[in-house]
């Protein structure tokens, strides 16, 4: 009984929670429902049933190009974020040096700064330096906003890993690299995987960096959908959005499997 909710207050809390669950799911459910309507325009409730809008979306060259570009960009950004974030997290958790707190805040500072402004500041820098390689510029921007998430998840799993095992391995004569590879990595692997997957999604969904740095040849999915919302009024926008929702659900399932959702977000 201890700690369980009870009494009339409990009913109020549970009702609010149920209402909020509906609130959270409503825009997703509505989008899915609209995508199957057998009409040329968007209507609710949907009339009939058709998958033609999915067929149309999957044949849309702009959408396919955007999917391909977003996937590549997110993969590259994830690799970049891991390369920068994992060593940094390791130093933060396992090394003792002056100013650790300050360094930790610095590494996480892109999460505090408005991402939209990070993007426009990068645009200014790239314009000034005459960096005109759009994919590379976007990659830099995406690594900048995904790396802090990797630092956070890796640091969280490192601090949960059992350090006495590493000491034991070392006592038994293993060198640092071997200890890292055989003892530390297996322990933090779920956290790393969750962090990497989360970084992938952060990059895949990123809008406020891409807004400034993308061009017509390199148009990621969120930007494409944003443009379509203003110009296309058929249910194909809903179909594309539904595909994105299903993709996200798949990732959530995997995240939950690998290491727990809340751990992935290090909250």
């Amino acid at each position, binding site marked *: 009984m201890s700690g369980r909710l009870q009494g009339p207050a409990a009913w109020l809390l549970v009702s609010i929670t149920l209402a909020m669950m509906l609130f959270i799911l409503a825009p997703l459910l509505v989008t899915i429902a609209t995508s199957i309507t057998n009409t040329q325009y968007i209507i609710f409730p949907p009339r009939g049933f058709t998958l033609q809008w999915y067929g149309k979306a999957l044949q849309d060259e702009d959408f396919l190009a955007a999917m391909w570009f977003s996937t590549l960009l997110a993969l590259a950004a994830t690799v970049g974020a891991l390369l920068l974030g994992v060593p940094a997290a390791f130093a933060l958790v396992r090394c003792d*040096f002056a100013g650790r707190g300050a360094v930790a805040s610095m590494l996480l500072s892109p999460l505090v700064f408005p991402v939209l402004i990070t993007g426009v500041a990068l645009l200014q820098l790239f314009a000034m330096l005459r960096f005109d390689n759009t994919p590379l510029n976007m990659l830099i921007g995406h690594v900048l906003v995904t790396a802090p998430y990797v630092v956070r998840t890796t640091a969280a799993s490192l601090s949960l890993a059992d350090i006495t095992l590493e000491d034991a391995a070392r006592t038994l004569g293993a060198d640092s690299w071997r200890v890292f590879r055989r003892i530390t990595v297996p322990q933090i692997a779920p956290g790393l995987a969750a962090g990497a997957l989360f970084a992938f999604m952060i990059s895949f969904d990123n809008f406020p960096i891409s807004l400034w740095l993308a061009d017509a040849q390199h148009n990621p999915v969120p930007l494409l959908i944003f443009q379509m919302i203003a110009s296309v009024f058929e249910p194909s926008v809903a179909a594309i959005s539904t595909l994105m929702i299903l993709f996200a659900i798949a990732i959530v399932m995997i995240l939950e499997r690998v290491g727990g959702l809340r751990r992935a977000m290090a909250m």
Partner: protein
Amino acid sequence: MASIPVDAAPISRSRASRSPRGLALPKRLVPAALLLPSLLFLAVFFALPALGLISYSVLTQAADGTIGLPLTLEHYWHFFATPLYARVLLTTLEISLIATAIAVVLGYPVALVMVRSSPLIRQAITIIVIAPLIVSVVVRTYGWQLILGNGPTGILNWLLLKTGITKSPVALLYSETAVVIGSLHVFFPMMVLPLASALGKIDPRLEDAARTLGATSWRTFRRIILPLSLPGLTVGCTLVFSLTAGSFVTPAILGGSSGQMLGVLVEQQILIVYNWPFGAACATVLVAIVLGANLVSVRVLERRRRIAR
């Protein structure tokens, strides 16, 4: 958030002396080598451009588009003295504050139910709360556009007319209210998760004790739960406020002309008007608001930690 355990006892010091075959690098250089790539990357692609943008806001743009001296505060004056822009600033603050306040009122019940339920229900609530975070903001906002649509084709209006709650469709889309609803949806998890994590640490026996001693639910909340969850509340409020203030997609799709926010203004000034210095000034105002909110939150958390000691 920001859960890097810097307070944890340093581990490597005790071991430094007895590592038989350590790395080739001297022990003290290891953290430097591990951190250098990240810090260098941040310096070049984050700190430098951020300072560059801020410096643009006090420079002058010549007729041919080049930006340089003389230094001027004219762009800030222009921002604060023009009613149109001052209005955007006020709207931004208003929308962010209202979204945060609603998130607090609705976030506590959800976080409490989440923490106090059986593992299965807790997992279900966690997934529903977090899952939308992984769906692109653009897609979620599109869903809200469908729901809030003006005229009888909007889903909310269809529902209202169908159930006879209203006789004629209500106009919600393209207003501040629409942006508040959209922002609340996008950033609600940022309130619930820190709250749930703070609530999870409260010893449930404290509440039982309060209740046994005759306290009402409201009193128990006010005297036990609220003060003990203050750190989570502070983090949640800061996140929801600063993320809402800095948002672009939600006001751009749902705001129309009356719900415009600073982010949209920055985008218009730079990508459409090409007025870099003025756009930079608007951006700097936005950064000041967000960093100000974070500073207040750090202060609150620090004071609390001192009292707790």
